[in-house]
C-alpha cells in the first residue's frame, strides 16, 4: 500500500497519544519528561510531512527549532530531577 500523507498523520497522532498518556497517567517525573519528548517528536513528524507533501522548506526550519527546544527541555528536566 502506498504511503500517503494520512499515514504520517496517523503515526503522528498515535505518537502524540502515547505521549499524552505518559504525561497524564504516570506519576514518575522522569517518564513524564520522556513522554513530552515523544510529543515533540510527533510535532516534528507533522511539520516534516506537510513540508514534504507541499515541497516547502519552512516545515524543516520549524522542525529544526523544535529539535533544539526538545534537547533543551530534556536537559532542563534532568537538571530539575537530579
Amino acid at each position, binding site marked *: 500500500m502506498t504511503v500517503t500523507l494520512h499515514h504520517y498523520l496517523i503515526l503522528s497522532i498515535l505518537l502524540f497519544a502515547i505521549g499524552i498518556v505518559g504525561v497524564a497517567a504516570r506519576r514518575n517525573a522522569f517518564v513524564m519528561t520522556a513522554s513530552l519528548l515523544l510529543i515533540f*517528536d510527533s510535532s516534528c*513528524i507533522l511539520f516534516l510531512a506537510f513540508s514534504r507533501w507541499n515541497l516547502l522548506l519552512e516545515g524543516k526550519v520549524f522542525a529544526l527549532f523544535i529539535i533544539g527546544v526538545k534537547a533543551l527541555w530534556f536537559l532542563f528536566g534532568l537538571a530539575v530531577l537530579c
Partner: protein
Amino acid sequence: MPDNILFYIFSALTLLFSIIAVTRARALTCVFYLVLAGFSTAGIFLLLGAALLSIFQILVSFGAGLTAFTLLTSVAKPRTINLSKVIVLLVSLCIVIVLSIAIWRPPFAKFPMTGMNYTSPSALGVVLLNDYLLALIFFSALLFLCFAGVLSFVRGGHK
C-alpha cells in the same frame, strides 16, 4: 516500494519503543527505549527527505540518553540491568542497517526554479540563513541563555 516497507518498519519500531518507554517503571529502561524510539523517528525523518534533521535527531537522542544514563547512575546506584543484550544489539543493528540504506537513497524531488534537491541540507541552509536568519539568531541566543540558566541552576543546587 522500498520506501513503503521502510515506513512501516520505522513506524512499528517507533510506536513499539515509545509504548515500552512510557510503560516501564525504571527510569534507566525508559531512557534506553527512548533512545531507540529517537533512532526510529530519525529514520522517518529520512523518509520525509530531512537528512540533516535526522542526524540532529540521532545526536540529540544519543546525547540525551547518555546524559540521563550518567546522571541516573550517579544519583542512584542501579541494580542489575535486566535487558537482554542480544535483543538490544540485534535491534540496534537493524536500525543502523536500515538507516544506512535510507541515507543512500536518491532525492525524490527538485525545486523547479533553482534545481536544488529538496532533501539536501544546503537547501535548508539557504532558507535558514536568508529567510529565517533573525529567527535563528534569536533562537540561538535563547538556547544559550537557557543553557546558562540550567548550568547555574545545577551549580546552585549542588551548593
